[in-house]
C-alpha cells in the first residue's frame, strides 16, 4: 500500500507543507504548514478570511494548491477532486449537512455504496446497516424516515456516521456544533473521542473556545493566510489564543488614531457619566434559539455602542433581532421608551431604527437598479403623494446624499452593481440616513471596502453620533471597534459577557473579556464582580440588564475547563 522504500514512514498521517493558494491575486494561503498525527484532535482556528476554509479545501481536494505539497501517510498526493480525497481516507463534514434530505436516513448513510442483491439495492440490508451504525452514535431514529424530517443535530450525526464509515483516516469537521443542542454536542464529543481511540485524526474547526479546550489536543492558528501558531492545546492560555487569532500582542499599547475615528467621546453620555437620560433604544432579554441568549442593550442619543466578540458570538443576530429581521424567541425592544409591538424591519424603520446589514450583496443592494433607486428605496412612501413618486424630491435627496457621502458614480442612473464595494456601502448608508433615523445599527460597515472609503465611513459614523444619532457598531476589526465605541458590549456564544465603557475599552480589556472562562451553569446568577481578576471591571450599571451586568470570573491561567 504505502511505499516504505524512499523515506521512513512519517509520523504524520496528513502533512500540508508550504502550501500557497491565491485567488485572482489575493493570497488566501501563504506557505502554510499543517501536520496531523494519527489519533489526535487538532483545532484549526482563525477569524474570518484567515484562510481556514481554503486550507480545508486544499486538504480535501476541492482546491489544488498553487505551490506546496499535501502528503497522506507519507505519500505525496494531488487530489483532483473531493472524491479522490475521500477514497484516500479524508472525510469532511461541513457546517451545512449536504446529503439528500428527501431520501431515507438509511439510504443517505449508504449513499454510493449500497449493498446489492441481484443487481438491485438491498433495502433491508441498507436499513440494517444504518440502524447498527447509528446506534453506535447514540442516535435512535427510524432509519426509513426521510433525512430532512430529522432535527439538525441528528442530521449532523448521520453525516458524521457516513463520513466515518468510509474507512476514514482523517475526518475534517467544519463547525460541527454550530447548530447542535448541548446534549447533542456531548454525543458528538463522545464520538470524537471514539475516533481518537481508533487512531483517526480529526481536524476540528470551531469558534467556540470552550469546545476547543474540551476536545482538542493541539491547535493551529491561522491569520491572514499564514500559520501564526501550532502547539498543544493544554498549557495555552485563552488570552494568548485569542490574541493570536486577532493578531494583537497582549502587551502592546494601542496607538491611537490609526482609524479615522475621533478620540473624543460623543454626546453627553460618553465616558463614565451617568445615564440619567432615557436611552433611545433599549433591548432586553433578546433570545434567538441557538444564537442569542438573553442579551440586553441600551443605546443613548449620540452614543456609539460597540458590539464585540469573535465570529459566531451572535453579534449580527443580535442586531437582526433588534430590527425584527430575525424572529426572536423572547425579548423586548423599546425606542424612546415605546415598546415595538410588531417586530418586523418595517416596524423598526417606522420607529426610527435602521440596520446596515452585513452581507451587502444579498441583504443590501438591489443589483440591477440604479443608485437613485437604491438610495430612495426605503424612503419611497415618504416621497410620494397618493402613491405617485415625486421625481423632483427624489432627485434632490439622492443628489444631496451622493454629494454628502461623496459617492463616486457616473450619475444617479448608474447601476449600483457597477460601483466599487466602498461606494455601494455608501449608497446603502445613504438609503438609511435619508430616513432620518434615531438609531443606526451598523454590521461590519467597513468590511471589504478600500482604505479611503473605510476612513470616510468611520469619520461619518463619528459625525453622526455627534449629531445625536444612537449607533450600534459591529466590527471584526478590533481597532475600529475600540476607537469607535463609547461603550462596548462583549458577546460570547450568544451571551453578553462583558461591558466596558470609555477608557476601559482597550485591547487588553477586550481580549481579557473574550478570554474569560465561560460561565458555568451553577455559577450563573451569583454576583461575581468582587472576584473579577481584571480588577478594573466596570461596576454593574443600574440600567444594565442583570444577565449582562456581571463580570464573568476571569482565570487567565486556566487551560482546561472543568468537565461539564
Amino acid at each position, binding site marked *: 500500500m504505502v511505499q516504505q522504500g524512499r523515506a521512513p514512514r512519517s509520523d504524520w498521517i496528513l502533512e500540508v507543507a508550504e502550501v500557497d493558494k491565491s485567488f485572482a491575486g489575493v493570497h488566501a494561503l501563504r506557505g502554510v504548514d499543517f501536520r496531523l498525527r494519527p489519533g489526535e484532535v487538532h483545532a484549526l482556528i482563525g477569524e474570518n478570511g484567515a484562510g481556514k476554509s481554503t486550507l480545508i479545501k486544499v486538504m480535501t481536494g476541492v482546491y489544488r494548491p498553487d505551490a506546496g505539497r499535501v502528503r497522506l501517510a507519507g505519500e505525496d498526493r494531488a487530489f483532483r477532486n473531493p472524491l479522490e480525497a475521500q477514497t484516500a481516507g479524508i472525510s469532511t463534514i461541513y457546517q451545512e449537512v449536504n446529503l439528500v434530505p428527501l431520501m431515507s436516513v438509511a439510504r443517505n448513510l449508504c449513499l454510493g455504496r449500497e449493498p446489492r442483491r441481484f443487481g438491485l439495492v438491498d433495502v433491508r440490508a441498507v436499513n440494517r446497516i444504518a440502524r447498527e451504525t447509528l446506534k453506535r452514535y447514540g442516535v435512535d431514529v427510524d432509519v426509513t424516515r426521510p433525512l430532512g424530517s430529522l432535527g439538525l443535530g441528528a442530521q449532523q450525526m448521520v453525516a458524521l456516521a457516513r463520513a466515518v464509515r468510509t474507512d476514514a483516516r482523517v475526518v475534517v469537521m467544519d463547525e460541527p456544533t454550530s447548530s447542535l443542542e448541548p446534549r447533542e454536542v456531548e454525543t458528538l464529543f463522545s464520538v470524537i473521542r471514539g475516533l481518537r481511540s481508533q487512531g483517526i485524526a480529526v481536524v476540528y474547526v470551531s469558534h467556540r473556545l470552550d469546545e476547543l479546550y474540551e476536545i482538542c489536543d493541539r491547535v493551529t492558528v491561522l491569520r491572514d493566510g499564514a500559520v501564526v501558531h501550532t502547539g498543544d492545546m493544554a498549557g495555552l492560555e485563552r488570552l494568548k489564543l485569542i490574541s493570536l487569532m486577532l493578531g494583537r500582542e497582549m502587551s502592546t499599547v494601542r496607538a491611537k488614531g490609526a482609524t479615522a475615528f475621533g478620540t473624543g467621546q460623543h454626546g453627553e453620555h460618553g465616558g463614565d457619566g451617568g445615564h440619567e437620560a432615557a436611552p433611545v433604544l433599549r433591548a432586553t432579554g433578546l433570545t434567538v434559539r441557538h444564537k442569542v441568549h438573553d442579551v440586553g442593550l441600551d443605546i443613548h442619543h449620540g452614543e456609539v455602542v460597540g458590539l464585540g466578540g469573535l465570529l459566531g458570538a451572535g453579534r449580527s443576530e443580535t442586531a437582526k433581532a433588534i430590527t425584527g429581521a430575525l424572529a426572536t424567541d423572547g425579548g423586548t425592544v423599546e425606542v424612546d421608551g415605546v415598546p415595538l409591538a410588531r417586530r418586523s424591519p418595517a416596524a*423598526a424603520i417606522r420607529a426610527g431604527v435602521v440596520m446596515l446589514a452585513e452581507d451587502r450583496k444579498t441583504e443590501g*443592494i*438591489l443589483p*440591477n437598479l440604479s443608485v437613485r433607486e437604491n438610495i430612495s*428605496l426605503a424612503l419611497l412612501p415618504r416621497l410620494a403623494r397618493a*402613491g405617485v413618486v415625486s421625481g423632483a424630491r427624489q432627485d434632490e435627496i439622492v443628489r444631496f446624499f451622493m454629494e454628502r457621502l461623496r459617492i463616486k458614480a457616473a450619475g444617479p442612473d448608474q447601476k449600483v452593481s457597477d460601483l466599487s464595494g466602498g461606494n455601494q456601502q455608501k449608497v446603502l448608508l445613504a438609503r438609511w440616513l435619508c430616513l432620518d433615523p434615531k438609531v443606526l445599527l451598523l454590521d461590519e460597515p467597513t468590511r471589504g471596502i478600500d482604505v479611503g472609503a473605510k476612513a470616510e465611513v468611520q469619520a461619518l459614523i463619528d459625525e453622526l453620533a455627534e449629531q445625536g444619532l444612537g449607533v450600534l457598531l459591529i466590527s471584526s476589526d478590533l481597532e475600529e471597534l475600540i476607537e469607535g465605541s463609547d461603550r462596548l458590549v462583549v458577546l460570547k456564544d450568544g451571551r453578553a459577557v462583558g461591558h466596558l465603557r470609555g477608557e476601559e475599552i482597550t485591547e487588553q480589556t477586550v481580549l481579557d473579556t473574550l478570554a474569560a472562562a465561560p460561565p458555568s451553569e451553577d455559577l450563573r446568577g451569583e454576583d461575581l464582580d468582587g472576584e473579577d481578576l481584571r480588577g478594573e471591571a466596570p461596576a454593574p450599571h443600574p440600567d444594565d440588564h442583570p444577565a449582562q451586568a456581571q463580570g464573568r470570573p476571569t482565570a487567565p491561567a486556566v487551560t482546561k475547563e472543568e468537565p461539564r
Partner: protein
Amino acid sequence: MTPTAWAAPGPLDRARLTRLLQSYGVYAALLVLFVVAATLDGSFLSAGNVRIQLFQVAPTLIVALGMALVIGTEGVDLSVGAVIALAASVVPLYLGYGAPLAVLIALVCGAVCGAVGGTMVALARIQPIVATLALMIGLRGVAELINGNSAKPVTDTGLLGLGSDGFAGVPAMAWIAGACAVLTALLVRRTTFGRQLVAIGDNRRASRLAGLPVRRVLVTVYVLSGVLAALAGAMIVGHGAEADPANQGLNMELNAITAVVVGGTPLTGGRVRVLGTVAGALFMQLITAVLTQHNVHTSYTQLVEAVIICFAVYASQERGTR
C-alpha cells in the same frame, strides 16, 4: 446590423452591442418585420387587416401587461388563461343587469383569483409556478361547472360593442389595451408600488430589510394580473359573440409569457419593460399573421416562434457584467 457599423471591434463594444440589442432589439425587429410584411404584401397595411390584427392582439397584450408585472417580481402567473375562462362563464350570467355590471363582476372574480394566487405566493411562500398552476387547473374546472360544457351565444349589444366597435377607425379593444399599457407604464415608473415591485423582484430579502411591504405588494401584483385577465376574457367573449369557457383563453398564459419575454423583461425579476411587452405582443401577433397569410404551414409557424423565443431569452440575459 453588423458589429462594425456600430463601432470598432473589441470586447467592450460587443458588450455595448449586447446592451443595445437588449434595449432596442425588440423595437428594431418589430420595425423590420413591419416593413418586410408591407413590402411583400400590399394589402398588409389595409385598414381591414390592421383592424383584424389589433382585435387579435388586444386581449393578449392586456394579459401580457399583468404578466409583465408578475414576472418583474420574479414570479409567473399561469392562471391567466383559466381566469379568462372563468370570466367567460361569469359574464353571461349577469348580462341581464347590463354589460357594465357583468364585466365588473367578471373583474371582481379575476381579482379574487389573483388574491388567492398572490396569497399562496406571498404568505404561504409556495413557488409562483406551482401556486398558479394549481389555480389554473382549478379555475378551469370552476368555469366549466358554472357554464356547463357548451358554448353559449351572447347577444347583449353592449358586450358585442365592446368586442367589435371602434373609435376613429381603431377598435375599442385596442384603445382599452393601449390605455392599460400607458397606465401600467406609469404604475411601474412613477408610483411607489411600481418601484417597490421592481425592488422586490431584484432582491426580495434586501427589500424586506428595507421595510417594504413585500407581501402586500406581491398579493396586489397577482390581483392586477387577475383583473387584467378577466378584462381580456370579457373582450374575448364580446368579440366572439359567444361564451366558451372550455376553449377561450387556452394557452393564453403561454402567449402572454412569450410577449413579455420577447419584449425583453428578464424572468429573473427586477425589471419590467412595459413598452417592450407591447412591442413583444405586436411582434408575435404579426409574425404569426404574416406567416399564415403567406400560407406557411402552422407547424413551421410554431417552429419560427420557438426560435424567436429562444433568441429573445438569450439576448435578454445579462452578460459581460462584472
